[in-house]
């Protein structure tokens, strides 16, 4: 894989944006509504969706991993690493698959990603706790993922629309 300078810069920018979004999520603690500590909305998936289309799966995965590791280091919380990694990677895998189908728009891909993100997080919670209790909240989380998915899809769509004709995308 050969990264152009432009692509590298874009990767770095997107990682920073993803980190900022992860931080932003702390202001909307989903755990108040769903009592599984560590569960996040998954707003950083916006970056994953964007990177997937704009840069490709490998770069998108790199951004994801950097975001997860840096996020955990900044927060000083290694518990969070498993949640964000499992959630993020599952979401990414599902979105890679879904984006192959050219029929789905960015909304469909995002919804699938959000659902996978929440499944991954429940799996992380089960692993961390050594108990299947969090499974009980999976249906609610799947329902929530419809909205977070639509939201990330909307924001990603706005981004693509805004950037489609800039030369940022022509690298």
């Amino acid at each position: 894989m050969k990264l152009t300078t432009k692509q590298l810069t874009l990767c770095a920018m997107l990682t920073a944006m993803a980190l900022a979004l992860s931080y932003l999520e702390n202001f909307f603690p989903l755990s108040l509504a769903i009592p599984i500590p560590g569960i996040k909305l998954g707003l950083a998936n916006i970056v994953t969706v964007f990177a997937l289309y704009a840069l490709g799966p490998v770069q998108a995965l790199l951004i994801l991993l950097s975001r997860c590791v840096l996020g955990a280091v900044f927060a000083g919380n290694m518990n969070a690493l498993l949640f964000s990694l499992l959630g993020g990677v599952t979401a990414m895998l599902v979105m890679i698959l879904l984006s192959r189908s050219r029929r789905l728009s960015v909304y469909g891909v995002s919804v699938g990603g959000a659902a996978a993100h929440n499944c991954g997080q429940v799996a992380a919670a089960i692993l961390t706790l050594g108990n299947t209790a969090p499974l009980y909240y999976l249906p609610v989380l799947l329902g929530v993922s419809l909205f977070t998915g639509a939201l990330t899809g909307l924001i990603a769509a706005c981004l693509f629309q805004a950037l489609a004709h800039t030369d940022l995308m022509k690298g």
Partner: protein
Amino acid sequence: MRRWMAFVLAAVLTGGLTACAGTPADPDEAQESIQVIAMDTVMIISAYGEKSTHTVYMAEDEIRRLEGLLSRTEPDSQVSALNHADEQPTAVDGEVSRLLNAAALYSEVTGGTFDISIAPVVSAWGFTEAENRVPSQAELDGLLTHVGMEHVHAESPDAVWLDQGTQVDLGGIAKGYLADRIAMLLRENDIPRATISLGGNVLAWGDRPDGTPWRIGVQDPKRPDDAEGFAGLLQLEDAYAVTSGGYQRYFEQDGKAYHHIIDPATGYPADSGLISVTVVADCDREASDGLPGTGTMCDALSTALFVMGEEKALDFWRNSGYDFDMVLVTADDRVVVTAGIAEQFTPDEAGGYAYEMVS
């Protein structure tokens, strides 16, 4: 702007979803259940909701009241008064008059296969007496001349009389009517869910506390003593179900079994190839006004259809205009279920029946 609105929407809906998950499924968890022995059978009244206790005891009072009014063996009942009036016009309650008229109607529409004036013949077989016996053909022929609703004159409640030799027994619709009356009590007391079992007559009111339909086991007529032996399972919500079967009461003499459902045409126990008939019809909660209604209909029809036999019963189901469904158990080991309840019916494989759905 749009994205924030979407976010607020997501947050609100998230809250809504969790609220659903957190609240218990049913606010009416109070339950009261009583057992009443009346009308020669065991009745179980089981109601849920705030006023369940009050309601089940009202239902017991209603059972006692109707038994006192309609019993043929109770000397003080209005039915006894009619049967022993010697052709003298007698005033009866509007309620008794309405029941006599309902009985006349069901007799007419079923071609006389349901007939409350069959009472003296049933007595001749000893089913209301201490001892059963097989009456002679001559005796039956004599009694049958007095059978028929043309011998019952009930146009006005103020003057009801029976022709000489005729007697009536409302037992064939009393429990069905009781189910109609109890349905009214349930409605008046805002009972969300209840099961009323009146010995062969069931009222499934509302649904189970877990939100699924009530599960009604249809007794396997070939295993009447096995409490777990079912011909099938009916999942019912707001419905009446009534079973008539020869296995419920019978006696044996000289190796032959004689059951209590007498065919008014022959004077003999009906021999129609059916061993049990279950009639199911929807209960319209709002229309439960305590008058002879769907419960009464189911009770009368179950007897009539049992006497008719499979073919005529299916004809009646298709053409009568009455809205009901049936489960027929035949003597040749088939269970016939009509299309309207096919989805609510689950066969019980242990019975060894062949199951058929007809439409």
